[in-house]
């Protein structure tokens, strides 16, 4: 049984409320940081912990904090990215819904380290009811002297506000989030300047994911070095994985990054195996934008090693035979699922969520969606598959923000590993509307097709 740092107390009754949370040891990190550490020491501790951003990109959080510009007389801001919208990902929601105080606690410590007197939680508009939960938690923290003026007599003032978005995946991109927080359309900014220099209202800003900020709590409580001991290599600490799709026990799990993918899927402690006794066909282990892998490549790397649930092992083999940890949205597809159709729904998602600012993404996502729909319905041509490959190649890396890459990767990976399923759709236009291609050889311990 792996260690739990974030969800340890998730099942304590009424942990959502301050009194219970406090009784269970909550807000110790605020006391420790504000009373015994200076802000730079807090940042140093986060650096030592090796904590990587939990939003998807995996950028070291301590490093991000240390980049923050600190010009005299200019306010700095911490903004928590709770715009969780990546298909397959619902871990931040779980955290905020059941343990709102761990986020607030982490925010106070992080705000202290960064010198932010007004910090914001940018939450996706659809998480409407969670806004109330967070606002209540903030109110409780304020009433107990953990927010407001001169917190715990340290001279540090901090307030937290919840800003509710209104339905736009793109606002999970940090500069789009900042634009949206400024009351504008969620068009990502062209970088540089980075938010650490010029963020919200042109002030230095750090944008961190909910889980990242929550992880600051155990880091300060236990010390960065202790935290870094959990996990392996550069994958330190614990990670929340939201598992969904065709599994027996969908839900949010905290793992310490030392377990294998196979264990995660089949152990009763986690996903509990593929639902209805079906066989595993494929999996997207890090949210919809990371490459999909067929079962054989998922459980073992191309070198034949057991694939583990951590940043390094998941990306072993690069995009040719590996994938990414991403945001931890673990989507499992059983033998009855159609990869073409699934890829189509993702393409539709990205077309719907493209902000439309830059041309490759605006035009390319729609084109891919149309081609994939045609292929799914058995109306496609063989050349469509190569065309899709070419389109994704021309989007990837050529857009303002990573949404272009996020839209390109799932299509590329699906063609790379499941090309025969696409071809089957072209060759069997009638049959593919009635049944799916099935498991085929995707779970065989055979050499894998790599386009």
């Amino acid at each position, binding site marked *: 049984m792996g260690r739990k740092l974030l969800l340890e107390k998730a099942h304590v009754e009424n942990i959502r409320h301050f009194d219970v949370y406090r009784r269970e040891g909550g807000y110790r990190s605020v006391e420790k940081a504000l009373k015994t550490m200076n802000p730079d020491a807090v940042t140093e501790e986060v650096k030592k912990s090796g904590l990587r951003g939990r939003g998807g990109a995996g950028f070291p959080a301590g490093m991000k904090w240390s980049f923050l510009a600190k010009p005299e007389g200019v306010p700095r801001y911490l903004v928590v990215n709770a715009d969780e919208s990546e298909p397959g990902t619902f871990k931040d929601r779980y955290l905020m819904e059941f343990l709102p105080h761990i986020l607030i606690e982490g925010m106070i410590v992080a705000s202290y380290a960064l010198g932010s007197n007004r910090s914001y939680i940018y939450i996706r*508009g659809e998480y409407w009811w969670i806004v109330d939960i967070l606002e209540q938690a903030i109110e409780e923290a304020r009433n107990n002297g953990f927010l407001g003026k001169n917190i715990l007599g340290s001279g540090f003032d901090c307030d937290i506000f919840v*800003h509710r978005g209104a339905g736009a995946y793109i606002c999970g991109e940090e500069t789009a989030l900042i634009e949206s*927080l400024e009351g504008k359309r969620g068009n990502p900014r062209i970088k540089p300047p980075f938010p650490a220099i010029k963020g919200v209202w042109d002030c230095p800003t750090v944008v961190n994911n909910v889980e990242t900020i929550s992880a600051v709590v155990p880091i300060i409580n236990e010390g960065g070095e202790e935290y870094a001991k959990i996990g392996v290599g550069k994958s330190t600490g614990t990670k929340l994985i939201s598992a969904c799709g065709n599994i027996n026990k969908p839900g949010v799990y905290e793992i310490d990054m030392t377990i294998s993918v196979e264990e995660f899927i089949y152990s009763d402690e986690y996903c509990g195996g593929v639902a209805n006794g079906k066989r595993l066909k494929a999996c997207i282990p890090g949210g*919809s934008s990371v490459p999909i892998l067929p079962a054989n490549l998922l459980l073992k790397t191309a070198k034949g090693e057991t694939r583990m649930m951590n940043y390094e092992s998941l990306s072993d083999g690069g995009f040719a035979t590996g994938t990414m940890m991403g945001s931890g949205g673990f*989507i499992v597809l059983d033998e009855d699922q159609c990869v073409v159709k*699934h890829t189509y729904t993702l393409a539709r998602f990205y077309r719907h*969520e493209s902000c439309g600012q830059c041309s490759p993404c605006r035009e390319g996502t729609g084109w891919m969606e149309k081609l994939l729909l045609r292929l799914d319905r058995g109306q496609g041509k063989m050349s469509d598959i190569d065309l899709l490959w070419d389109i994704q190649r021309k989007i990837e890396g050529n857009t303002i923000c990573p949404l272009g890459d996020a839209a390109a990767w799932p299509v590329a990976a699906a063609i790379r590993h499941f090309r025969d399923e696409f071809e089957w759709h072209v060759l069997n236009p009638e049959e593919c509307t009635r049944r799916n291609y099935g498991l085929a050889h995707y779970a065989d311990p055979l050499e894998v097709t790599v386009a």
Partner: protein
Amino acid sequence: MIQFSDSKLKEVEKIIARYPQGKQKSAVIPVLHLAQQEFGGWLDVPVMDYVASLLSITPIEVYEVATFYSMFNLKPVGRYMFEVCQTGPCMISGADNIIDYIGKKLGIKPGETTSDGMFTLKTVECLGACGYAPMMQMGKHYKEHLTPQRVDEIVDECRRNAASNN
């Protein structure tokens, strides 16, 4: 005449106060949410103009924002809006069947409203409830683990609530 009640105006003031002085434009999304709730579930041009005047910004700045975000309705919608997620994880858990079922039950296609103005069916992209699929958003809350029976219950409940509120 479009006008918030005094208590709502206080709420607007509170929203504006969350942001630094002079940055009241930041309040546009929260205030639009409030306006949509207050003025019939959708944003008509006079409503958006009113929001612009409250925040001392130009109307086009409000239109730009309102049309960008998918939660703002620019056309009238039914009293209850079923926003069913159809993205990958929900799709593999049977969202298509649920959408079909709701459509047949209410006699409408996605994007349409029933003739009595009671229900709107809308398909949406990922709502972050992939583990509890298939699911939909109805107002402030999510309805998860949908089955045809569950849909029947929800529809009945809506009808009952509507009848008792009238």
